[in-house]
């Protein structure tokens, strides 16, 4: 049997703010009569996210998300809603994988990348980007 390791390495992957966003997602819920909306899932793992957006003059006035899945996908979506509120659709269009990863600030393995990017991909589909 192997000795119990300390938490270094893994608390890197699951920092406190990630767990906080996972358990207390920001902008959680749905919007009534959203201007744009999309729901999708990652069929490989079943992670599921819905994004509702209220637009005004090409600016994201309000946004809500609802989902279920792993800490990475849910925290990433929660962080994303904070990032994009008040931004223009063009600014969202410019967002990519690197922005999401920078937002999370943790190392993501190839197998988990789809989790991290699910929120952005759903938002972009909602906005027809």
């Amino acid at each position, binding site marked *: *049997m*192997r000795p*119990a*390791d300390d*938490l270094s*390495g*893994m*608390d890197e*992957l*699951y920092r406190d703010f990630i*767990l906080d966003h996972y*358990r207390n997602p920001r902008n959680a819920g749905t919007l009534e009569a959203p201007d744009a909306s999309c729901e999708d899932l990652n069929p*490989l*793992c*079943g*992670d*599921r996210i819905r994004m509702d957006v209220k637009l005004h003059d090409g600016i994201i006035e309000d946004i809500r998300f609802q989902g*279920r*899945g*792993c*800490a*990475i996908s849910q925290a990433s979506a929660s962080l994303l809603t904070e990032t994009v509120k008040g931004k223009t659709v063009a600014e969202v269009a410019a967002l990519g994988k690197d922005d999401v990863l920078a937002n999370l600030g943790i190392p993501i*393995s190839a197998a*988990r990348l789809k*989790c991290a990017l699910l929120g952005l991909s759903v938002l972009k589909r909602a906005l027809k980007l």
Partner: protein
Amino acid sequence: MTATMPQAAVGASLSPAAVARIRADFPILQERPHGKPLIFLDSAASSQKPVQVIEAMDDYYRRYHANIHRGIYHISELATEAYEEARSAIARFIGSPCSAECIFVRNATEGINLVAYSWGRSNVRAGDVILLTEMEHHSNLVPWQMLAQEKGARLRFVPVTADGRLDMNRLDTLLDGARLFAFTAVSNTLGTINPVRELCLRARAAGAVSVVDACQAVPRMPVDVTQWQCDFAAFSSHKMLGPTGIGVLWGRKDLLDAMPPFLTGGGMINVVRYDRTTFADVPARFEAGTPAIAEAVGLGAAVAYLTAVGMERVARYEHELAALALEKLRGIGQVVVYGPGIEHRTGVISITVGDIHAHDLASILDREGICVRAGHHCNQPLMEKLGVPATTRASFYLYNTPDEIDALIAGLEKAKRIFKLT
């Protein structure tokens, strides 16, 4: 083709020394992902391979690869013999009276599709009932949905009880009017061992043909299709120490003889004219094109390995590991174990831990070198029924050890600390 065979000790199960000798046959167990020893607890998804299997295929490619059946030269004769010997070895391994009953396919999934297309399209009619169970793998569910849709047949499902077993009380009612009953011998999510013989006999009594998904059974327990009294059984090589790219559909000879071909082309014909074709006898009729020859040789070597170890022992040892794991898991708070009690299960254990999502749990265990599966395990509707989006599944096989279960437990405890669960 390889001479060395595993040296398992005599006894009811596998001794630690026997397991140590078995482990030495599996090169991958020397790997150190993330700097930790590899602890492979995902054999239900795909098992690792002993050198005997790897070398049998190597030897084939280095010494006697050639296309089979129509080659009138030495290495082609050797290849043909090896291919057909593998078929015979598999027939013996599963108690089939006749090697022509074993058809080589790519995997269990293709085997089930073969039955659905060939037997199903010519025997199932509008209004017929196809009976399944609520615990089927997508591979033993979706092909029947497709058939039902094409033919206007109806699907019914044997319910899964709260403790993860088939509800046998409703079986005869559900079988009433059924043309076909397809079910798994062992659940790949719950670990449940189903009463295959009873299910087959009751299907037959009701006039239904039985299709057994033997994917999780053939690798881990003695299987005898004659004792089971089933009509068809499908399984995959890659889950039973053999290579990827090959699997077996076993079928009762009289049923196979009456079935039209599925895939057509070279190797499965009798006489071909531009406008019409007559077909070869089974098994050739169902093996169109150049088959997976090296893979058959590898699967033959896997069967020889498992036979040398002894399937009774493999089953008992896996059961011991499962009992140990269940006991230790009971000692950790917030762990929910799905599936039945130890007396009805094999070494496949699905759990959830507090609000930690299965993917996060698997990622944390991965950093410890521990390989487990996380997700729906190709059992989406069952997950829905269990009310969980995903579970984390550990599965044991003949090369796993009690120490590895301790490591799993330590990993789960670490995950709880990371997620600040008490």
